[in-house]
């Protein structure tokens, strides 16, 4: 099984089993595996990657500048491998930032866009394309094959990690859910879907390194910001702000837990 196939299979264990009876289980599993393999072979996320690369190089905004001088973690203009060190502390903003919040910063400083303009349509929907989803698809694709190595050596980074960890275990809302309710225990599934235990390095690596993903069910590339937003919706929490410090902190916790895992996104997800 190649990593993309594994990524696809991780998202949903054979939902199909229900429909076809236990005796058919092994052949069902084989066919679902065949499905995942064939769908995983050609990933429409490549269309986002292509669009994202063009956007990265295209002069935009009042300053008519491209993002090519943006520092996303390894210095101005370095894209290769940059995603594997994020989130990290940036001295110019004095903040720990994930990829999406960092891109907002560059759109503000380099291109002269307002935050509102920079985050417009941050979650795309059909013809309402999201520049952010395209940029993230491109930038993450340039980290394929490189192990995650997110640092917590600076106090600000350690702090973000600790806060993210607290957020992960924070129970609240009408359902008393925390992230940890579903993602803090080994070998659980919801319905037939395997739940990665994000406190365990192996599971965390497998899950984290395959986002963003092209979601077959939505026909869209979804980023980590979207993934966490959708988790909080199902947790019945209020909505986390897009590219906010809170989401960055939680991302920091998950990214550090995934350290050492070879980055393999954007993947295909159910």
């Amino acid at each position, binding site marked *: 099984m190649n990593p993309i196939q594994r990524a696809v299979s991780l998202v949903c264990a054979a939902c199909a089993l229900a429909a076809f009876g236990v005796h058919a289980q092994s052949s069902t599993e084989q066919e679902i595996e065949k499905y995942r393999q064939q769908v995983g072979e050609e990933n429409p996320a490549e*269309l986002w990657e292509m669009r994202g690369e063009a956007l990265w190089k295209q002069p935009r905004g009042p300053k008519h500048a491209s993002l090519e001088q943006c520092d996303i973690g390894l210095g101005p203009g370095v894209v290769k491998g940059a995603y594997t060190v994020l989130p990290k502390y940036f001295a110019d903003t004095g903040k720990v930032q994930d990829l999406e919040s960092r891109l907002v910063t560059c759109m503000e400083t380099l291109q002269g866009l307002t935050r509102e303009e920079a985050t417009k349509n941050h979650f795309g929907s059909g013809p309402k394309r999201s520049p952010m989803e395209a940029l993230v698809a491109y930038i993450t694709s340039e980290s394929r094959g490189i192990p995650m190595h997110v640092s917590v050596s600076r106090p600000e980074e350690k702090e973000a990690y600790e806060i993210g960890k607290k957020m992960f275990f924070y129970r609240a809302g009408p359902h008393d859910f925390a992230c940890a309710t579903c993602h803090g225990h080994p070998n659980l599934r919801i319905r037939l879907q395997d739940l990665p235990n994000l406190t365990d390095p192996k599971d965390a690596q497998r899950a984290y390194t395959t986002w963003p993903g092209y979601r077959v069910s939505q*026909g869209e590339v979804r980023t980590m910001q979207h993934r966490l937003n959708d988790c909080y919706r199902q947790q019945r929490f209020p909505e986390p702000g897009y590219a906010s410090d809170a989401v960055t902190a939680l991302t920091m916790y998950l990214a550090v837990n995934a350290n050492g895992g070879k980055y393999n996104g954007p993947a295909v997800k159910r």
Partner: protein
Amino acid sequence: MADPMKIRARMEGDLVEVKVLMAHEMETGLRKDSSGKLVPAWFIQNVTATCNGKTVLAAEWGPAVSKNPFLSFRFRGGKPGDKVAISWVDNHGDKRTDEATIS
């Protein structure tokens, strides 16, 4: 304007194998949006592929082709350096043509 396609064309023995990803919504006209309104049909109807001016594939599609369509086919008569051009036209009359060099 429509987004570019992603086209790969490469020699497999004496055949040219072409793989294309197209950016298109492929709306069936039967889907409702979040407010319950029908989303109008919007889909690619015709696809043509040419190499050295010769048509190597022509297709008619309905809205049942998946969103962000993928298509692969194989033909004879191309060689490395030749260009393969793919065009599509949708039911709104929007169109797009992209090219790839055979490797």
